[in-house]
């Protein structure tokens, strides 16, 4: 196993770069990071639309969420790769295709997490913000959303971890991300598939585990910020 690592580590990390396009672990990380950064705001926007009092906003987004949730990501990737260019006339490269598919897919799932987070808050919070005279938008922004995002952190991280693993589907459209590169290495080594794929598995595990631990740390930190520095006084939770 060490031998494989010694021979192929650079290829595993960055693909053919600088003699070819960037690939490997670096590309997977970039793809996942871009996916998360773009999907989160879109997911929040869709989530807000899902709970919005305006039907013209709520209905199309609800339909979008149901459609995307009802199909496998693989199909979204295929659509983005084959169907979209035939409609728009613009041929996108594999990276852009995969990124679009990830963002669309994750935004739909994140929208549901955001919706659940908002609806899970006590109704009194929104009511009280409105009673103070804050409009719907400001009440959402300053009162509801900050609390909802905090409570949905574990679910968000769950989705983010999925996103990291979903980047591996880039393989089927020939994107030189980590899984694709590993398969190439396996073809070259030929005799040690178990070891080669063990390294792949470990790499994904390390990324996902790292993100989970970071989220756990963040959760603890946020909880410490708003809760008692000393034991809460009697009746404090009412």
């Amino acid at each position, binding site marked *: 196993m060490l031998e494989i690592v010694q021979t192929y580590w650079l290829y595993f990390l960055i693909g053919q770069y600088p003699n070819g396009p960037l690939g490997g672990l670096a590309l997977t990380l970039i793809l996942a990071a871009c996916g998360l950064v773009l999907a989160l705001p879109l997911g929040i926007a869709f989530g807000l639309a899902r709970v919005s009092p305006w039907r013209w906003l709520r209905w199309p987004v609800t339909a979008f969420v149901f459609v995307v949730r009802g199909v496998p990501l693989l199909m979204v990737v295929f659509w983005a790769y084959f169907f979209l260019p035939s409609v728009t006339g613009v041929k996108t490269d594999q990276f852009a295709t995969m990124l679009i598919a990830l963002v669309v897919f994750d935004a739909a799932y994140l929208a549901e997490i955001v919706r659940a987070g908002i609806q899970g808050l006590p109704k009194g919070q929104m009511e009280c913000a409105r009673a103070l005279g*804050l409009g719907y938008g400001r009440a959402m922004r300053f009162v509801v959303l900050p*609390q909802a995002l905090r409570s949905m952190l574990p679910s968000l991280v769950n989705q983010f971890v999925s996103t990291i693993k979903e980047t591996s589907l880039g393989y089927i459209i020939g994107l030189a991300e980590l899984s694709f590169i590993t398969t190439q290495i396996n073809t070259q080594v030929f005799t040690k598939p178990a070891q080669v794929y063990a390294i792949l598995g470990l790499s994904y595990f390390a990324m996902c585990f790292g993100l989970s631990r970071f989220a756990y740390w963040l959760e603890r930190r946020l909880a410490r910020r708003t*809760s008692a*520095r000393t034991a809460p006084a009697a009746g404090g939770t009412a």
Partner: protein
Amino acid sequence: MIELQNVNKWYGDYHALVDVTESIPAGEVVVVCGPSGSGKSTLIRTLNRLEPIQSGHIRIDGQDIHAPGIDVNAFRSRIGFVFQQFNLFPHLTVMQNCTLAPVQLRGLSRREAQERALALLERVGLAAKADAWPSELSGGQQQRVAIARALAMEPPLMLFDEPTSALDPEMVGEVLLVMRDLAEGGMTMVCVTHEMGFAREVADRVLFMDQGRVLERATPDDFFNRPQHPRAQQFLSDIRSPFAPAV
């Protein structure tokens, strides 16, 4: 200041407010009482449009607040509302709870808003807790902060929806004292409460409600000593402790 004219409200088939007509002049302290489900909370929630009404008019300072097209946020910012469950914003400190609306809606600078909030926290006896989180406070303290937060918008009218019902008994007094202090300062107040001692001592007028109707309106003295409506007589005899000596 507040005029209700033939106000009707239904929840589906349930007639929650039946032809309520009432007038509350500025500076008056009105206590609304009655059995559970009598419509008193519904009534107070219609006064700042947290609940819509199906017919009738509610005018505050001459403005019909249920008319379509009025700026609901503007008129709400001039009415303080205190909830049974306090509803402090748990992700903000006591100070931030009290400055959010003034900074956002009145355009005060953060510093100005903080100075005013501190004075109000002083008034409710919690200036020392300005930097605390709501979760660090007792129920009574949270409710006092909620009152200070409502006062921060300098409303001429305060509505209280059972402000002491979610409190442990030993914390009721501190909240009622703050409310009495407000009443003595000339604030117009409408309070839904079960605290009959407060009604007796602080209210200018008591409204008794049952099944969505205002059945009796009287001074505290008349209401507690000479209730007219049989339902009010029944209510008063029911709430007297069975262990208290007959009077």
